[in-house]
């Protein structure tokens, strides 16, 4: 099973909630004014949260490998 969460930089996140709205897995929520990924199992690393974040606070980095 794939379990890995988008990386969150709590210092950069201002809790605006944009990522919460775009996550098609409803896997993100805001707690204590910062973002938490609650459903790492369903996260398919689509990168929408990263795309929408104005503060570069949530990231879905990719390891590049040769097949």
């Amino acid at each position, binding site marked *: 099973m*794939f379990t*890995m969460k988008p990386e969150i930089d709590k210092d950069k996140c201002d809790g605006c909630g944009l990522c919460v709205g775009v996550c098609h897995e409803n896997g993100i929520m805001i707690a204590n004014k910062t973002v938490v990924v609650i459903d790492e199992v369903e996260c*398919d*690393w689509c*990168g929408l949260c*990263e*795309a929408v974040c104005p503060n*570069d606070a949530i*990231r*879905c*980095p*990719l*390891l*590049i*490998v*040769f*097949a």
Partner: protein
Amino acid sequence: MKTKTELVNTSVFFAGLKPEELEPIIKLIIEKKYERDEMLFFEGDATESLIFLASGVVKIFKTSPDGKEQILSIAHPEETLNELPLFNGGLNATSAQAMMRVVVYMINKRDIEMLMRKYPLVASNVIHILAKRTRRLVTLVEELSFKRVNGRLAGILLENAVREGQSGARLTQRDMAAMAGTAREVISRSLKAMEDDGVIGFDKHKLIIKDREALKIISQTYS
């Protein structure tokens, strides 16, 4: 070749004006001829008048710092050649060269401005024309930069790729965009296109290079 009267009667610039309003405009037109290869204007020069191509074909181009010529468009009769710099008050952003014997009709910038003030219809025609031209340029820029971004991105992927099981740099699309000097959206589109072509694939948090040779070719062709 259209006469001056036919030009003002049919040009989109003056569409909607009454015949008695068109009449005085004809007198404002200056005719000029160019031989093949002759320059109509140069990039960086001030724009003095709006140029309508009456006959012949004109090459609109830019010269890159390394001297390469980038043809932006080939203008045909009845097109205007320089409306963008004319209306932004700036210098010519392009050069124009006659590709055969060419006749142009010109209207002085001050006269055009006077007509726009006098006839709001002309001003709205101008907006229409500029919007259309801008859209064409945007498309061209997209095509050009998309190819270049593909090239740079291919290089970035090759440089940062590791063998399965090894550890390596983990890059976000934003990182790749910063490295390629573009926006994340552009990288996103570029990756999608490569995925559609079967060059790369995704497996959760891994970006898999499926066709290393293809990536090399993309990188060499467009960087």
